[in-house]
């Protein structure tokens, strides 16, 4: 049975990675799982300089998921290259570095810095809803998304995945825009902007007031958007949004994703990715399928 997938020329041993920001650079989860078994590790976003992030509380639970407004706290690219990349290189898994920035120059500086590092892919975060400047500013208009993609592509040596925001009117337009800008792949969805109010204290649950909603509650939205994006572009799609089981992952692949990322579910069970990989294999066996790639976009209208 083949579990390998090819994402923009990079071969993963299986289609399962982790969603940026839920997994650090893997060190904490390495106490719980064998990182060698993941198709890829997607790191927490890293910027050209260290960012302190937002005030606390940064996280809150909502039914069927959670909200976060971490604010892209990160140690900066220098320490990241010195510590996190060598750590991940010990493992036989692909390394996807998530890149964040406040300006086109910031993104390009990090992409250029990573050009000679032993990383396999870059994921450009133009969709974080929790920082005032940059991030989402590039991810909500097709023109600016296309432009930032073009800029980053000038400096990146590795394939570039553009991570899209669901906080847009037309996800297909956004996917087409980054494809036109030269994106090698797209990933979606980032979190949906939400708000939670503590009715006893009459305050916002998060210090940032708004935060990104993630978890199983957003899964159907993610499936819909992955399907729409897959109908609009030719580049491979990494699907994410509320994946918590093999069934969710398979659903995402049937919708058109070539690979999947597991995010919030890692907080519920640090070993969930292992269960998902095993569950996909089991599904293929049960359905007498020999290749996980047969799942990609295999949804059909059916006859009711």
């Amino acid at each position, binding site marked *: 049975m083949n579990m390998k997938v090819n994402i923009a020329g990079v071969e993963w041993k299986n289609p399962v990675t982790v969603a940026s920001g839920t997994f*650090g650079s893997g060190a904490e989860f390495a106490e719980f799982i064998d990182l060698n078994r993941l198709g890829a590790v997607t790191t927490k976003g890293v910027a050209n300089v*260290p960012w*302190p992030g937002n005030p606390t*509380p940064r996280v809150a639970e909502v*039914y069927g998921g959670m909200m976060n407004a971490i604010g892209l706290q990160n140690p900066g690219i220098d320490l990241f290259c010195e510590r996190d990349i060598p750590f991940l290189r010990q493992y036989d898994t692909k390394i996807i570095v998530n890149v964040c920035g406040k300006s086109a120059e910031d993104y390009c500086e990090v992409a250029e810095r990573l050009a000679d590092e032993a990383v396999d892919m870059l994921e450009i975060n133009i969709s974080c809803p929790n920082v005032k400047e940059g991030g989402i500013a590039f991810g909500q208009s097709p023109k600016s998304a296309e432009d930032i993609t073009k800029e980053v592509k000038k400096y990146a040596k590795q394939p570039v995945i553009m991570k899209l925001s669901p906080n847009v009117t037309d996800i297909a337009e956004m996917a087409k825009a980054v494809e036109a800008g030269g994106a090698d792949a797209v990933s979606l969805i980032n979190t949906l902007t939400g708000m939670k109010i503590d009715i006893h204290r009459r305050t916002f649950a998060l210090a940032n007031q708004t935060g990104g909603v993630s978890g199983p509650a957003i899964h159907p939205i993610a499936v819909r958007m992955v399907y729409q994006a897959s109908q609009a572009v030719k580049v491979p799609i990494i699907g994410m949004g509320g994946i918590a089981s093999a069934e969710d992952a398979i659903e995402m692949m049937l919708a058109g994703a070539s690979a999947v990322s597991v995010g919030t579910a890692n907080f*519920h069970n*640090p070993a969930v990715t292992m269960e998902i990989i095993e569950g996909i294999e089991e599904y293929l066996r049960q359905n007498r399928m020999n290749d996980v790639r047969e799942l990609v976009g295999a949804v059909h209208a059916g006859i009711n």
Partner: protein
Amino acid sequence: MKKRRKELAVVVSQEQLADGIYSMWIQAESAPDAVPGQFISMYTMDSGKLLPRPISICEIDKAGAALRVVYRVTGEKTGTEQFSKLSAGDSIPIIGPLGNGFPMEKAAGKKAFLIGGGIGVPPILELSKELECDKKQIVVGYRDAHTFLREEFERNGEVYISTEDGSVGTKGNVLDAIAGHALAADIIYACGPGPMLRAVKEYAGRNNIVCYISLEERMACGIGACLGCVCQTKERDSHSNVHNRRICKDGPVFLSTEVEI
């Protein structure tokens, strides 16, 4: 190295200690690894409530591979309310023990204050059992006459109580109890609400006393990956490379002078 895991602990017993305060013993494979000041992540069986509840460890029974948690039910339909309905034989998913405990070796030969306030009282119990020092002064603050765990503290050292309503011990907070009894110490271990910890930190600074405080914050992963539960630090932290440390992984116990609270 053997991997850590989320495990299914088994409830040994559960009882209510005071209004909204529950005590539960659970048996878990990971229990013998625990030290005073650590916490466990407790998960509900409700699939809509995904995140673990970080709950401090109140007592450790290494031989019996069991942990005691004493926790507050935070409201109706909450995860903690679900925990309070578990009884002997029921299962509860946990990851534990997590974080770093109180540095007990620092107390050797010293006069110590072991300070707990409100729902920060429970972790002080195991500390009071295990700490070896010259003089063990346990100062615990409560809202009212529901002075849970008091008798158990009395077996482990000198106990001083404060209550906000004055119904038991000194009226006021833990520092009022310390002043009222003219107590002195040269090391402090404390766990409690933010305002109490700020006052204890300030008191320690003013009197030049080494002070360790256990912090609390909303958490998501509980294992140091998500950066949800940071506290601000005086110096740039070597892991984060900014003035933040992770309460779940680098704490929850910190030297009072290293954190801004």
